[in-house]
C-alpha cells in the first residue's frame, strides 16, 4: 500500500463533507473515484494530495504515518502531484508553466528542457512552449495542467476529472498514453471521473462515493458488474432495478415472476441491463427463460442508441436497441410487443 486513508472525516463551515472514509491505494494501481456531483470527490482528493488536513483521521505513506506538518509531510507531498478539476495556469508561457515543478526541485536546465519537450509531445502540445498561457483554449489549458504534473514524475498522480474538456479522439489518445505510462512507470494514479468509459478503460480498482461516504470499493469489474446496492446499480447505469421477494421459484417483482440464477432468498433487489432485453414482435421459442408481453410507452434517443420503455403489467422495463434494430422492427410508441431476457442476465443483490 503506497497510501492509506484511515477514518478520514472532513468538516467545513460546520458541514460534514467526508464521513469516515477508509481507502488504501496499492502501489501501481490505477484507482478510479466516482460518485455523483457534490459527493466529496474533490474534497477527498485534496486530503489525499496533502493539500488539506482532514478534521479527523490519519494517513500513511508506505505504511509510515504522515505527520500533520514539517519536513516529512513536505517530503511526501513532493512525491505527489495533483491536477485540479479547474486548473489554473501561472502567468507566462506554457513552457514556464510546465517547467516550474522541475525548477523548484533544482533540476538542471538541460534536463528541464528535455523533459518538458517530452511531456508536451505526450499531451499533443508540441510547439506550444512559447505560447502565452492566457491564450489557450479550454482543452489546451487542461493538457498543460496535466503536463505540468506529469513532468514531475510523481509516485502518486492525482487527477480530478482530467479529460472533461477534450474531444473524444484526443481524449482517447491521451488516455491510452496515460495507460501506457501507468504500465511502464508503475505510477499510482488516483483519478476522479464522471466518465464510465474512462473508468472502465483505465481503472484497475476504484470506489464510488455518496454523500461523503464510500459506497463501494473494489476492482473496476466488481463496481460495474456487481453493484452492491440499488444506489450503486442505478449509479453505474443499470436502468431496470427493482425490489423483489426471492423464493425458490424465482423473484416476485410486482406481479411478475422473474427467473434468475442466484440462490438468494427473502427481500432484495434485482436489475436487468437494458441491453440484455430483446424486443420482438412475436414470441418465439428461445433459450431465454423470461418472456413478457408489454406496450411501448416511449422511444427516446440516448446518444447513438435508443431507449425503449415498455410497460409490462405494472412494471416499466427499459430496453436499449440500436438505430438499425429500431427501423428493422419498425417500432413505434403505443405498439404491443414482447420482451425477453435470459435468467443469467438478471443481476441479484
Amino acid at each position, binding site marked *: 500500500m503506497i497510501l492509506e486513508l484511515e477514518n478520514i472525516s472532513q468538516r467545513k463551515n460546520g458541514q460534514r463533507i467526508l464521513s469516515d472514509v477508509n481507502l488504501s491505494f496499492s502501489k501501481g494501481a490505477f484507482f478510479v473515484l466516482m460518485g455523483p456531483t457534490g459527493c466529496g470527490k474533490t474534497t477527498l482528493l485534496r486530503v489525499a*494530495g496533502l*493539500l488539506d488536513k482532514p478534521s479527523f483521521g490519519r494517513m500513511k505513506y508506505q505504511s509510515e504515518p504522515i505527520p500533520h506538518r514539517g519536513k516529512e509531510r*513536505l517530503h511526501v*507531498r*513532493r512525491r*505527489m*502531484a*495533483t*491536477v*485540479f478539476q479547474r*486548473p*489554473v495556469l*501561472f*502567468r*507566462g508561457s506554457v513552457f514556464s508553466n510546465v517547467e*516550474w*515543478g522541475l525548477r*523548484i*526541485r533544482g533540476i538542471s536546465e538541460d534536463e528541464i528542457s528535455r523533459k518538458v519537450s517530452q511531456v508536451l509531445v505526450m499531451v499533443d502540445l508540441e510547439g506550444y512552449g512559447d505560447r502565452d498561457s492566457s491564450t489557450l483554449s479550454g482543452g489546451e489549458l487542461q493538457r498543460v495542467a496535466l503536463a*505540468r*504534473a506529469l513532468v*514531475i514524475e*510523481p509516485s502518486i498522480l492525482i487527477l480530478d476529472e482530467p479529460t472533461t474538456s477534450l474531444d473524444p479522439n484526443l481524449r482517447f489518445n491521451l488516455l491510452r498514453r496515460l495507460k501506457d505510462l501507468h504500465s511502464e512507470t508503475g505510477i499510482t494514479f488516483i483519478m476522479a471521473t464522471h466518465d464510465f468509459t474512462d473508468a472502465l478503460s483505465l481503472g484497475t480498482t476504484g470506489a464510488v462515493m455518496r454523500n461523503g461516504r464510500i459506497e463501494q470499493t473494489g476492482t473496476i469489474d466488481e463496481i460495474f458488474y456487481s453493484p452492491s446496492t440499488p444506489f450503486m446499480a442505478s449509479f453505474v447505469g443499470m436502468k431496470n432495478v427493482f425490489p423483489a421477494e426471492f423464493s425458490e421459484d424465482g423473484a416476485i417483482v410486482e406481479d411478475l415472476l422473474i427467473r434468475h440464477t442466484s440462490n438468494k432468498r427473502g427481500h432484495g433487489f434485482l436489475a436487468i441491463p437494458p441491453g440484455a432485453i430483446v424486443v420482438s414482435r412475436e414470441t418465439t421459442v428461445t433459450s431465454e427463460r423470461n418472456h413478457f408481453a408489454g406496450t411501448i410507452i416511449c422511444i427516446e434517443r440516448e446518444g447513438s442508441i435508443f431507449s425503449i420503455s415498455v410497460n409490462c403489467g405494472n412494471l416499466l422495463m427499459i430496453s436499449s436497441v440500436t438505430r438499425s434494430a429500431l427501423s428493422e422492427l419498425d417500432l413505434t410508441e403505443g405498439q404491443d410487443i414482447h420482451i425477453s431476457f435470459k435468467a443469467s442476465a438478471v443481476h441479484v443483490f
Partner: protein
Amino acid sequence: MPQLLEAFRIALDMIVSGDPVVFSIAFRTLMISVTATVIAALIFIPVGCLIHFNRFRGKRFLVSIIQTLFSVPTVLVGMLVFLLISRAGPLGSLGMLFSPGAIVLGEVLLIAPILTGLTISALSGMGRDVADTALSLGAGQLQMVLKVLSESRYMVLTAVLMGFGRAVSEIGVAIIIGGNISGYTRTLTTAIALGVGKGETSASIALGIILLALAMIVSVTVNTLQHSEK
C-alpha cells in the same frame, strides 16, 4: 500663473546647466528614498506574506491597525524617531540624529504600513488557486509564497512604487530627524519646504519638477522591468 512657466524655465536651467548643488541634493534624495524603499520592501513584503498566509486570532484587527497606520503623519514618525535617536533617547549614543541614515530609518518606518497593507491586499486578490497549484506541484511554503507574490507582481510593484512615492515626497521625517542641513541631509522636499518658507515659489516648484522627474525615472524603470520580465 507666470510662476509656473518661470518654474519650468528654472527647472530646465538647473538640469541643463547641471547645477552641482541641485544635482547633489537630487542624488541624495534618490539614494535615501530608494534605500528606504528597498529596505522596507525586503522587510515588510515578507511581513505582509506572513500575515496573509497564516491564520491567527486578531488577524482582522491587525489588518485594521495596519490600515490605520496609512494615516500616520510624517511628523509623528519624525518625532518618534527623534525621541528614539536624539542624544537623550534610548539610541542616543549612536549619534544618528541629523544624518541621512536617520532619514532612511524614519522613512522605512513611515512606509512600512503601506508596503505591508498593500502586499496583504495584493495577495488577498489572488485567491487560493495559485497557492494550491504551487503546493500541488510540490512547492515548499516559501516557494509557494514566492510564486503567489510573483503572480501578483503588478500589485506588489504598485505597492513598492507607492512606498517609494511616499518616501521621496515626505517632509516631516527629513526635517525633524534629518534637520535639512545644507550639503548633508538636505533633500529635494526639505529644500522645497525651505524655499516655500522664504517665498521663493518658482524655485521651489522647479525643485518639485525635478523631484517628479526623478520619480518618473523610477516608475518607468520599474514598469519596464516588470513588462520585460513577463
